[in-house]
């Protein structure tokens, strides 16, 4: 069983533009759906609140790892056992974490973005994610909306 997630996406925007969308905390917040308290700084904790509908009670907390301009942006973040309101931990620092890495490569038409999330072998295997399961229909619908939006533009 694979214990990491890998995504690649071609973006019709220069590397410098993609870098800004990833590392400027306001721009990141816009597309990711999170209201961040302040800028990303290597080695520092980034805090905020998720703005994604249905998940507004979930707080964002990540530890920025690397910021190598226009090449690599990475952070670790927790995977709480459940996103149910009663289960959200007050302290994320003890929760198991995964590493998220964004790598940028210049292409003829713009930028190739590679995203990996690794370290799932550190997570306990008992997460029921009742909240996720309940919201599964909602997520599927949301993805369709985005697909339609992208296809129409």
């Amino acid at each position, binding site marked *: *069983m*694979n*214990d990491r*997630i890998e*995504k690649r*996406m071609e*973006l*019709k*925007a220069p590397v410098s*533009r*993609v870098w800004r*969308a*990833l590392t400027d905390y306001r*721009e990141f917040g*816009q*597309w*990711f*759906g999170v209201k961040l308290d302040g800028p990303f700084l290597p080695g520092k904790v980034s805090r905020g609140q998720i703005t994604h509908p249905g998940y507004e009670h979930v707080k964002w907390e990540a530890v920025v790892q690397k910021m190598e301009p226009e090449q690599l942006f990475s952070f670790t973040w927790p*995977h709480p*056992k459940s996103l149910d309101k*009663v*289960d959200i931990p007050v302290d994320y620092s003890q929760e198991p974490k995964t590493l998220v890495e964004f790598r940028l490569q210049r292409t003829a038409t713009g930028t190739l*973005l590679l*995203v990996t*999330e690794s370290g*799932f*072998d*550190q*997570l*306990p*295997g*008992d*997460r*029921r*994610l009742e909240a*996720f399961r309940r919201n599964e229909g909602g*997520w599927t619908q*949301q*993805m369709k909306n*985005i*697909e339609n*939006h*992208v296809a129409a*533009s």
Partner: protein
Amino acid sequence: MSQRRSRRAAKRRPRAPVFAALGDEVRLSLIAKLCAGQPYSISQLTEGTGLTRQAITKHLRVLESVGIVHGVHRGRESLFEFDPKPMEETKKYLNFVSEQWDQALSKLKSFLED
């Protein structure tokens, strides 16, 4: 901690990393044998591995701790059988996180290209 929360926590399987349990060749070979559905005894599982009963038992306990195998009794015999649920749940969770990334990256794409 509220009572409700502790009750819910008690219902859960013990916290143990499924991936870590799978990250071993001996354990993977044990699962390969057991996942066909038929329960096996420790002797049967030890046969042909070149390992001791004790070593195999230790590996079985690790798999048992994450709920991938269960001990069952048939008469006087103690057998082990495979339970696919923890692996299915783990896979489901990875798929869920993967879908979240697809969604987030689609948003990033339209944020940059629209």
